[in-house]
């Protein structure tokens, strides 16, 4: 009873888990699994985008007025930050495939830093002022303190709906960024202690896929909330 291995997994490469035959099969499986997971993520955010479209469709004018309250330069800054982080992540994956541990670590560190920068901009410069103005759904005060008189004509209900969507969508995206930071820190730690888990480039590659997805979501969120046409 000492060993849980009963039979014939007499194989091979210690990197290959018992359920797989070859490293190639294992790598393929992980990549297919990751893409399948990203499909669920697309549907997850897709549901939110669907709601957004429905409501924007029926409140074009009011949504336009409300969007002026959001600062597009900050949004643009965040877009740049995330695009940069996608680039650094791609570099990290490149070096992971070559097993260049040092540059891999540096690029992953940069990615984590940029991601944290994104969250700082988002929370400190965008969410916090809204909190102060009473525009959090659970701390709702409308029109309260708004930047332009145009907004005074927006019905409180529509404003709350807009902000609900804004906080739900950017918040959910923010949670994904946060999870990304946590994952990357774990990856960096495992790489540092030379864990066998990250000997292959695959974990870095999979995280890279996730990170590009998170970036992509923001690429949609930015114009939808910050750059509405009149």
């Amino acid at each position: 009873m000492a060993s849980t291995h009963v039979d014939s997994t007499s194989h091979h490469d210690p990197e290959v888990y018992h359920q797989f035959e070859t490293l190639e099969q294992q790598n393929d499986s992980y990549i297919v699994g990751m893409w399948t997971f990203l499909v669920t993520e697309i549907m997850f955010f897709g549901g939110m985008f669907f709601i957004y479209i429905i409501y924007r469709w029926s409140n074009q004018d009011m949504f336009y007025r409300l969007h002026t309250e959001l600062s597009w330069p900050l949004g643009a800054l965040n877009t740049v930050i995330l695009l940069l982080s996608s680039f650094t992540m791609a570099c990290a994956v490149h070096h992971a495939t070559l097993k260049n541990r040092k540059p891999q670590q540096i690029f992953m560190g940069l990615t984590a830093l940029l991601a944290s920068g994104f969250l700082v901009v988002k929370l400190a410069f965008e969410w916090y002022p809204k909190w102060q103005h009473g525009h959090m759904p659970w701390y709702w005060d409308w029109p309260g303190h708004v930047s332009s008189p145009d907004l005074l004509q927006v019905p409180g209900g529509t404003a709350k709906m807009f902000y609900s969507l804004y906080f739900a969508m950017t918040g959910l995206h923010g949670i994904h960024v946060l999870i990304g930071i946590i994952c990357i820190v774990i990856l960096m730690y495992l790489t540092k202690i030379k864990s066998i888990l990250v000997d292959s480039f695959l974990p870095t590659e999979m995280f890279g896929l996730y990170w590009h997805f998170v970036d992509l979501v923001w690429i949609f969120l930015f114009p939808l909330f910050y750059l509405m046409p009149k």
Partner: protein
Amino acid sequence: MSATSVGIPDVPKPKEEKNYLNNGNTIASWLLTTDHKRIAILYLISVSFFFLVGGTAAGLVRLELTSPRGIFFENETYNKIFSLHGIIMVFFFLIPAIPAVIGNFLVPLMCGARDLAFPRMNLLSWYVFISGGFLAVLAMLLGGVDTGWTFYTPYSSLYSNTQVTLAVFGGFLAGFSSIFTGINFIVTIHKMRAPGLTWFRLPLFLWAQYATSVIIILGTPVIAITLLLLFAERVLKLGVFSPELGGDPVLFQHMFWFYSHPAVYIMILPAMGVTNEIISCFSRRRVFGYSFVAFSSLAIAGLGFLVWGHHMFVSGQSMYQGLVFSIITFLVAVPSAIKIFNWVATMYKGSIRLQTPMWYGMGFIGLFLVGGLTGLFLSSMASDVHLHDTYFVVAHFHYVMVGGTIMGYMGGLHMWWPKMTGRMYPEFLGQLSAMLVFVGFNMTFIPQFIVGYLGMPRRYHYYYLAPEFQVYNIMSTLGTTVLGIGYILPVFYLLWSLKYGRKAGPNPWHAWGLEWTTASPPPTFNFATVPIVTSEAYDYDAVSDEQHDFLREEEDAAKAAEGKE
């Protein structure tokens, strides 16, 4: 590892062969296992528990409805009981039942793989499922939920002051658990098939599981975000579904049914898959029109995403929307009809053995047929207007989800029980329970069709405004008793068989399929060597099989072996 005993005298007689069941007996070896077969058993135990909880609630509902003014409960309690029944049965029994128990056990075995692609994620899915179930049960214990399983807003978001938040979060977690299972199945079926096991040699159960997984992958995230928003509406005062803010009151229904209609196919497709295996094995015939049946699964999965609006013909969506959803719904009739007719055709020129799984298989065809055809009433807009939200709908979806899914589940459980446990159950009791379920089921739900047509709305506690409904409700409740016995009976004889059942050989039914080529119960890593598949699917031969009575032969062999000892 173990075979070093040669030459050493007085070694204790080698015990039973190692299999996944006796490979580690500690609780930790079960709770931390990554073996898909053990996880399947964990799921089996958990969904049986939830079935018991949901079934008890169903019994209470039926008992209460025997009188137009109720018997035991206040309105609020009654509402909580039927919500409990719905939430537990849908999210914690029907959706996971076949994929997570039978699928988990069989997908790697049928693929000829040692395990699913991601065994740890598989275990995680069970823990997530159990946490979700725990929250749902906790919600019931802390006072219950009175929204019904559909959680329609604005009642659930703004008006109900019951434990909706907890239950919604439980449902959210259950969704994640099925996403994990879905990803696992898709990757396993894509990447881990044994050499020679081409797509068109796959057992149709795997095709069904594949289609199911696609639905899970595409649909479940949408219900997850919907429930999350509902959760945020209650906790963070978010306002997305709130009509008070000018939100669309029907939007939640769209989001909800976008998942929950395909979810019906999550429940029924695996049952269809099980039925393929049963009908084919017990008729000793290759499934008639294999590729049509295989693709009809995918067609159902695809069309399933385009029909959600048929739940909303009277909910205030536009008339033209209704027309589109209705016609697409009619198209689903085609793949369903293909399946049914192909199963029947499979029996032609077979050598049909009426053993327990076959009774369940034929019962499935009968009940699913009624469920599917009564769907015509509800997919037709004008006809739906009168029947919508009445007991007709209740009866219809019970025929599909209970008649269909549970018949498939029970059939599968009986077919693969020898594989799972290495023991045979008493055949007579098995057949008896299959017949009790079939008869009891019809007794329960046929009166509900009638009372629904007469106009009894669903989710009604009191019906003193129309006391003529009482007679049908009493008939239905009587049927429930029979049905209940049919469901309880297997619990006893299956448990009994664990200890006293006759030992099953690797292939007691002489069935086709890789899972039957390994021992019963299978060893932890399923196959000693990777199997290579050389034959087409369902390579049965009714003519030569006619010479054998496999079950009897096995029994004789077992007796002979005992006699020798």
